[in-house]
């Protein structure tokens, strides 16, 4: 699946998007945050406060317990500040 990062999450991770293949036991958005955090210091820094991070699956907002099976695109970003 493709993972995208925006704003300071993108800056901390160091890439805007990438393709990842998490293991089968990574079921939810929260699991994916945990798994990504284990991939290195940059990820751990980006996701150090998981409660702050917002997520979208296929361009729609989802909660941390959303199941990621079947997702084409998952995005992580800070609270939005548009308008």
């Amino acid at each position, binding site marked *: 699946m493709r993972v*995208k990062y*925006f*704003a*300071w999450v993108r800056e901390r991770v160091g890439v805007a998007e990438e393709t990842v293949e998490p293991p089968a036991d990574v079921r939810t958005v929260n699991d994916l945050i945990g798994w990504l955090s284990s991939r290195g210091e940059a990820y751990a820094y980006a996701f150090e406060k998981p409660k702050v991070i917002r997520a*979208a699956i296929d*361009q*729609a*907002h989802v909660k941390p317990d959303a199941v990621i099976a079947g997702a084409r695109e998952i*995005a992580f*970003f*800070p*609270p*939005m*500040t*548009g*308008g």
Partner: protein
Amino acid sequence: MSVTATIRIQEADFDVAQEIAALSKGRTDVGAVVTFSGICRGSENGEPIAALTLEHYPGMAEAEIGRHADEALSRWPLQGLTIIHRFGRIAPGENIVLVAAASPHRQAAFEAAEFLMDYLKTNAPFWKREESEKGTSWVEARDHDDAAAARWTKP
């Protein structure tokens, strides 16, 4: 007749007067057009700002604003609706966002415009970064914006 919202996510500036005129041009049934335009301030907490840079999530920005526009059209008797949100670097005094709602009477247009702005602030995937003499920093989300959006949630 069903009403379709005009939604534009763009880097270029826009002309507020032209957008208002477009909503009532050639028709005599529109009684009210309410507009909100968000403009880049030249200072924040007393500190001068050189510019804002808005990052957005292409695709989701259109989809998310479209969903809220459809909700507004279903909740209020609107005759026209225009939403424009810019991205990229925006200098103080320039437009950032426009919501313009047309209806036969003012109340629906006022409420729809306010509903849309409250949701855009908290749910549209845009992020502001401020440039000042001290460098650049991401603008933090505000709790009162979340509270403003929450009051529109149906019980």
